């Protein structure tokens, strides 16, 4: 509660939180607020400059792309795709990471050795290369990863895309999750290892509490604050990684809009229409900055609890963020 109150005091972070929430909620009503149809192609209207009327007299606030599709409309739909992808990927991989890290750190022994080795092994792989390879396999072969149709339909409804597009997006998500959970798991394991040794955990065990009770009431709540910070950083990380992947052409594919693939098209028309790449750049810029500010606010809110293990955990999180960045630079 104290942390929450301290976070609210952090003005910038609060505004950023409102901003992201507003963008996401608005994108959920895309069909109501978007001025045009998502894929309405009209070649006569192609390359309309922002804030001007197209050849047929229709008005486009952010202009149109090379196929004459309204960019504002696509931005709104893309927000839905990009943000949902980032949220799902980060949430699922954090949950898996927490579960694995808790079990490995709390019980130790053989389980710990096994999972730690596995995590180490997965993290020696160059993540971004693997993402590129897996993305390239997934876009060439739509059955590379079996996706239950219920899942792709649900994702399709959330993102306002059809089932086939949904399937592709789910595949990209699965790849991100498969490679993303290790960082969280390692970080949670490290914290749980030191929390496990605390006296309150030991006394609770002595009083006859079960391991499950101990994990839920003592270990998890104490490990939670840094996990939340890592979650926020991970959120901006996967937003950026998804747009980078789509930008290079291995992520979400064209009729489905995502900020990354919109930028990749705009990039090829940059010299004739310099305003074009600015349009998708803007939301990527705003969202990644805003999410990072939220993370920063959370970190400040948590800061008074300067205990060694938490500082170390924060440093590990920062280290991981820097490593991820240099991999994707």
């Amino acid at each position, binding site marked *: 509660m104290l942390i929450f109150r301290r976070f609210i005091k952090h003005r910038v972070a609060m505004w950023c939180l409102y901003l992201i929430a507003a963008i996401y909620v608005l994108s959920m009503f895309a069909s109501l607020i978007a001025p045009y149809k998502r894929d309405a192609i009209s070649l006569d209207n192609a390359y309309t400059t922002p804030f001007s009327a197209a050849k047929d007299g229709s008005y486009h606030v952010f202009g149109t792309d090379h196929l004459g599709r309204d960019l504002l409309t696509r931005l709104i739909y893309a927000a839905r795709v990009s943000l949902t992808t980032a949220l799902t990927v980060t949430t699922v991989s954090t949950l898996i990471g927490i579960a694995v890290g808790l079990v490995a750190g709390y019980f130790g022994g053989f389980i710990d050795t096994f999972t730690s080795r596995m995590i180490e*092994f997965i993290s020696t792989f160059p993540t971004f290369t693997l993402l*590129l390879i897996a993305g390239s*396999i997934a876009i060439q072969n739509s059955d590379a990863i079996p996706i239950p149709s219920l899942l792709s339909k649900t994702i399709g409804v959330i993102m306002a895309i059809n089932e086939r597009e949904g399937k592709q997006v789910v595949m990209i998500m699965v790849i991100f999750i498969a490679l993303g959970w290790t960082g969280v798991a390692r970080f949670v394991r490290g914290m749980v290892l030191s929390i496990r040794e605390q006296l309150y955990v030991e006394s609770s065990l002595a009083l006859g509490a079960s391991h499950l009770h101990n994990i839920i009431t003592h270990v998890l709540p104490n490990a939670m604050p840094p996990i939340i910070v890592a979650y926020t950083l991970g959120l901006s990380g996967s937003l950026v990684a998804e747009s980078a992947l789509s930008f*290079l052409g291995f992520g979400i594919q064209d009729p489905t809009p995502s900020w990354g693939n919109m930028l990749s098209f705009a*990039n090829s028309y940059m010299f004739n229409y310099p305003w074009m790449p600015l349009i998708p750049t803007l939301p990527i810029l705003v969202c990644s900055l805003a999410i990072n500010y939220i993370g920063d606010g959370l970190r400040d809110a948590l800061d008074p609890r300067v205990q060694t293990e938490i500082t170390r955990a924060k440093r590990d999180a920062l280290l991981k963020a820097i490593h991820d960045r240099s*991999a994707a630079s």
Partner: protein
Amino acid sequence: MATFLIRRLIQMFIVLIASAVVSFVLLYFAPGGPMTGLRQIQQSGRNKISADDIARIKQRFELDLFVPYRFTRWLIGFPAGPISIAGQTFLADVQVGCKIPGMVRLRYPDGHTEIIEEGCEVPITFANLVDRRTSRGILFGDFGLSQVMLRDRPISTLIASRLPYTLQLMGASILISIAIGVPLGIYSAVRQYSRFDYTMTTISFVGSSLPTFVIGIICILVFAVGAKEAGFIYLPPGNAVSNKDYVIPYIGEVIASSTLDRALHFIMPLGVLVFVNIAGYSRFIRSGMLEVLRLDYVRTARAKGLRERTVVLKHALRNAILPFITLLAGVMAELFGGAAITEAIFNWPGLGRLLVDSIERNDYSVTMGLTMVSIFLLLLGYLITDILYSVLDPRIRLS
């Protein structure tokens, strides 16, 4: 120390082999490859490609061998032919692959026919392997042949042509960013909450939260497109050299592939990488320094009457710099791996772009080679970091 080294080297070897298996399997299942186009031509029926032609192409890329043999030949260049011990040859007749598969024509009740491959008409044995290209295997530095990008030419040629560009870009950017980022981080920590610190943290915060491709595109828009329109000194937007002469205001004519031309092309990608790295490094050093400067021994050092400079640089920095060394573990892999996205944006002909291109064009042997190199360098980086750590920090004993 010796036991530690031996154990680590064995561990490293196991991880390397395991990751070789994983990357081989992953790319084995990837669609495309050198045969895709051919199948389409063959099915269209205009240009008949004989079974011999296909067999010849398959042989080039070893696609006619069974997967385990392909893997071992790729990894260590074994088997290269029948094994001969003391004048006697063994295993000469063992089948390792299939040169021409048997074709079976299926006739369906509704009249249409389909040809499927079944069985093996001409098998390949150990003895046939003798007249193939001998490979030393990727573990010994032989990457094999490129399948698509430089068809039939060794991948090492491809890598050698790109390596200088990547080394140049990554080497310069890493050195410059350490040289600038570390002092900035230290200064920011020493003057915490000063105006300099606020500016610095804001800039590095923005730098480390923005994606590289966004920074790169904005740079191109401002320094290449915008500056050119405004008639100001502009920078070339991409490539490492230009192929024709051009005129830049205030500088004059730039002759293609002269030093000036190369330098102008080098500035923007270098600038983006340096900016991004400095942001990360200085934040990291700053937080490490802040943590150490609070500690008791720093206060003791000050109480002894040491100069502030000595306290900061000799006492505090030595401990704060330790975690920075773990950060440098990845540097070697980065140095040779290049920066895929930056290179893609600026059309820089380095290894990072080679990787992206090879994946895009389904040239798997190139992708596998590059992945193996980067995994190897990363493992080596970890090993060196561990050794360095124990040298620099006497509290850590390797065992």
